[in-house]
């Protein structure tokens, strides 16, 4: 007979499963963590290589000459920006028209759900200015975008200047096969969102914008430029976009190839790559770079203006100029040449970038780890949940050793299923409250407490989160059927909760591996060990430590550590509060899914485990 249909063998398998369950779970957990840490070890990574034939080897001789003039334009832009006190729309329009582009503007406005204290804005009104360089001989079917943000103060003036300088140089060339759109967006991400929504005729976030008068065909690739100094020492590449989406690896490969060709120092996550991968410090460096990328991807926010393009399947990246204390400085002409080279190679594209990976992690700019290599780390963690579920199923199906007879069993089964429904519904209602109430009741909170709106929202969220901890003591009163407490009822709830968590984490890891992995790291152990029989106080403490909110708190401190900017506890707490408010804002402004995921799905799941712990 077959392995699973032979009752003897089945019994043996099941007994082995129940006996070895806990050790296998522990082994899998540590194996998963070790696999993840091993990803940064250089022999396990692959060197990056250009996959797209059309982009080939970089052979063009770049000839952009006008770096100094670009900087002068930047200074002019700064002066006009100061005079107008915002975006100098007329000056930009006239300047772009003089350079031979077709210029259009788009005005937009948005009232944030609550004031953004990081950027100090509440009601945002602005204008985007963009000029289209039409390809001299090609039909207007495809486009490339180069954008620079118009930031308040002294930031990014040189970026706009270089953008205008490149526009003039590009206008004199005849080899463009795609339209190039030069975009200056106001209020960084909000302006970019308005422009993209207008370009693609969608309206997903409730912003009001004027329709775009001029258009350029489907956008194949986009680069966003951030440059705030006349000379730089290195160029940083930012890839992480909204919801942890990444552009095609070929875009990073292109950037790296040109960095090597032109001889500019290039970094990713602000870290320079090292050659000593076999030493401990070298490995540490690679792990730090990879962990930074994981953190940034897990947060689900767009880390540059490029982050919003990815949703429309447009490969985009942000290039940041960094001026730090190094001897060798690069001037604006060289940066212009690098961008010119990249755009000429993108010009040769025949289809969208699709030959290389869309899911990867980069421990350095020249090495990458693809999804096939990093997914097993998450798989090992998910296996723990499945093993636990199997164990519970076996336990549920073995007849109980207590003296209940067969007739009462059926009632009991029905009883337990219905009693599972109660905690489920209540946890999800709490989740909905966590999602919806903070923004809705910010006015009443401001009336009754001496806090600002932002603080009101964040503190309401934390309050609802903490209030959820009090729930188990109340749900026991709301059983639908019968008052006989059932010792086995918690098993059914745990089975449902474990499977629910497995599905949730699996789906999250598919879309945003970093978020799924970090949640799995903390939630899987607690899902595995929690039962009503473990010591209550200690387990309650551990459960709170491993809850999503505390994971976020630790991640904030860890992230600051990784960037070599450790913060004190006070500053860390304030940073944590601002992170929560940013998360809520990102969701309503750009459609980021991290906050709804945590509030509506992960938090109720965690509440179910809290409920199991206090099951009576």
């Amino acid at each position, binding site marked *: 007979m077959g392995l699973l249909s032979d009752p003897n063998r089945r019994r043996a398998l099941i007994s082995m499963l129940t006996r070895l369950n806990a050790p296998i779970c522990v082994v899998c957990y540590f194996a998963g963590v070790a696999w993840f840490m091993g990803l940064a070890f250089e022999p396990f990574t692959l060197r990056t290589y250009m996959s797209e*034939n*059309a982009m*080939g*080897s970089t*052979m*063009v*001789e770049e000839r952009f000459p006008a770096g100094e003039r670009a900087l002068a334009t930047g200074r002019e832009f700064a002066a006009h920006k100061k005079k107008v006190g915002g975006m100098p729309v007329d000056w930009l329009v006239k300047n772009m028209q003089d350079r031979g582009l077709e210029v259009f503007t788009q005005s937009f406005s948005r009232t944030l759900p609550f004031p953004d204290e990081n950027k100090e804005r509440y009601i945002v009104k602005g204008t985007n200015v963009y000029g289209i360089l039409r*390809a*001299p*001989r*090609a039909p207007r079917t495809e486009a490339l975008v180069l954008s620079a943000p118009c930031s308040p103060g002294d930031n990014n003036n040189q970026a706009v200047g270089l953008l205008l300088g490149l526009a003039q140089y590009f206008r004199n*060339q*005849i*080899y*463009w*096969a795609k339209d190039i759109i030069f975009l200056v967006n106001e209020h960084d991400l909000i302006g970019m969102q308005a422009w993209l929504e207008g370009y693609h005729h969608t309206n997903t976030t409730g912003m009001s914008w004027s329709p775009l008068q001029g258009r350029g065909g489907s956008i194949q690739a986009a680069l966003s430029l951030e440059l705030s100094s006349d000379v730089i020492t290195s160029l940083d590449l930012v890839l992480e976009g909204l919801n942890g989406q990444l552009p095609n690896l070929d875009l990073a490969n292109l950037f790296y190839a040109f960095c090597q060709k032109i001889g500019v120092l290039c970094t990713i996550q602000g870290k320079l790559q090292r050659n000593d991968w076999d030493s401990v410090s070298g490995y540490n460096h690679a792990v730090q770079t990879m962990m930074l990328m994981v953190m940034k991807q897990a947060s689900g926010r767009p880390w540059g203006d490029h982050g919003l393009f990815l949703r429309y399947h447009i490969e985009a990246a942000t290039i940041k100029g960094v001026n730090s204390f190094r001897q060798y400085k690069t001037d604006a002409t060289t940066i212009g040449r690098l961008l010119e080279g990249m755009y*000429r190679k993108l*010009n*040769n594209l*025949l289809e969208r970038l699709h030959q290389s990976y869309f899911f990867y992690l980069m421990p350095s700019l020249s090495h990458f780890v693809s999804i096939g290599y990093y997914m097993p780390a998450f798989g090992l963690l998910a296996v723990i949940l499945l093993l636990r579920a199997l164990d519970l199923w076996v336990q549920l199906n073995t007849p109980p050793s207590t003296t209940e007879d067969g007739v009462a069993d059926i009632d009991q089964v029905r009883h337990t299923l219905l009693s599972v429904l109660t905690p489920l519904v209540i946890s999800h209602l709490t989740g909905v409250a966590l999602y919806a109430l903070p923004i809705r009741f910010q006015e009443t909170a401001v009336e009754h407490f001496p806090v600002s709106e932002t603080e009101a929202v964040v503190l309401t969220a934390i309050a609802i989160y903490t209030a959820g901890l009090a729930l188990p003591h109340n749900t026991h009163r709301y059983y639908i059927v019968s008052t006989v407490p059932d010792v086995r009822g918690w098993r059914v709830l745990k089975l449902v909760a474990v499977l629910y968590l497995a599905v949730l984490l699996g789906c999250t890891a598919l879309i945003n591996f970093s978020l799924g992995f970090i949640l799995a790291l903390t939630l899987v152990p607690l899902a595995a060990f929690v039962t009503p029989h473990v010591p209550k106080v200690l387990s309650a403490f551990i459960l709170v430590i491993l809850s999503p909110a505390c994971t976020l708190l630790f991640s904030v401190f860890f992230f600051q550590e990784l960037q070599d900017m450790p913060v004190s506890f006070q500053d860390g707490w304030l940073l944590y509060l601002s992170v929560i408010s940013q998360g809520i804002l990102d969701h309503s402004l750009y459609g980021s899914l991290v906050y709804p995921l945590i509030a509506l799905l992960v938090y109720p799941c965690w509440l179910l485990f809290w409920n199991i712990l206090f099951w009576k």
Partner: protein
Amino acid sequence: NINPCVQIIIHLLSVISQNSAGQFFSSGHTNNWAVLVCTSRFWFNYRHVANTLSVYRSVKRLGIPDSHIVLMLADDMACNHRNPKPATVFSHKNMELNVYGDDVEVDYRGYEVTVENFLRVLTGRLPPSTPRSKRLLSDDRSNILIYLTGHGGNGFLKFQDSEEISNVELADAFEQMWQKRRYNELLFIIDTCQGASMYERFYSPNIMALASSQVGEDSLSHQPDLAIGVHLMDRYTFYMLEFLEDIHPASKTNMNDLFKVCPKSQCVSTPGHRTDLFLRDPGSVLITDFFGSVRKVELTMDAINLTDPINPVNGEEQKEVYSYADQLPVSEIIHQKPKQKDWHPPDGFILGLWTLILLVFFKTYGIKHLKHIF
């Protein structure tokens, strides 16, 4: 009263001059054709178009007219939007030689370059509406040069990123050409990766083949142009063209020199050639037999009287009049009655099979059923 020595010398000289005249007419071909095919499209395959156009230029320079050249280019590089020097295709970075110019006649362009069209051109099976410029109107005294370039692999050549021609198909096409007497001698040159695999399967006589690389080797490109941003030529064709630059219509260079073109040190790949199907010794085959169009001109000092009918010399009987053989007897095919097929006894195998079936039938159902059959 001539000195007998001088007499012998004069006799010898006339014999020698007759021999050189004989040698002059020994190759057996009276006209030259060239079929030049570039099979790749897209901007980054610029070099394949440049290869083909450079060979086209050399072949024209050496005398083959446009009416005898079938040029197939799969993509238009000169007018590609990405070409920074529009209406030009450059082949040599230093010389900046524009091989496109005003007088290039492309017969098959763009999507017309397909495997089907290529084979139809070779075998002559074209629809009646095809113009003359798109036909290979060769006969049994034509020497044909066939040049292919593009991306290839072991046993195939890729056409247009969507289909392939295999070496077996190509060999069969050449056999069709031989049977229809469409060539006297054929020179086949291929410049792709693993090009030698394409001539492995040839089995028709009088074919000589050259390839830029052996099986398992890649053919490499020569030099990038930093202004245009692409590689301009492939190495093998580049060195072959340098070699051809020294050839003029009266050159006596032979095929053995062409085999030595582009050794491994220059080409990185190992060029190969195949001469076992060729009836003449390659050392006696001139380059201009294939690349040029050397017209055989017979000079005579005798005056021929055209008013009187030509009387046969030596009283020979009048030879029979020759008529041109119809290559494709259309009328016969259209009005053909079905031919009576001779009866052949059934194949032994079929007989045996039927016997087996019958035996099994009778074994299973018993011999008593026999009476129902008969």
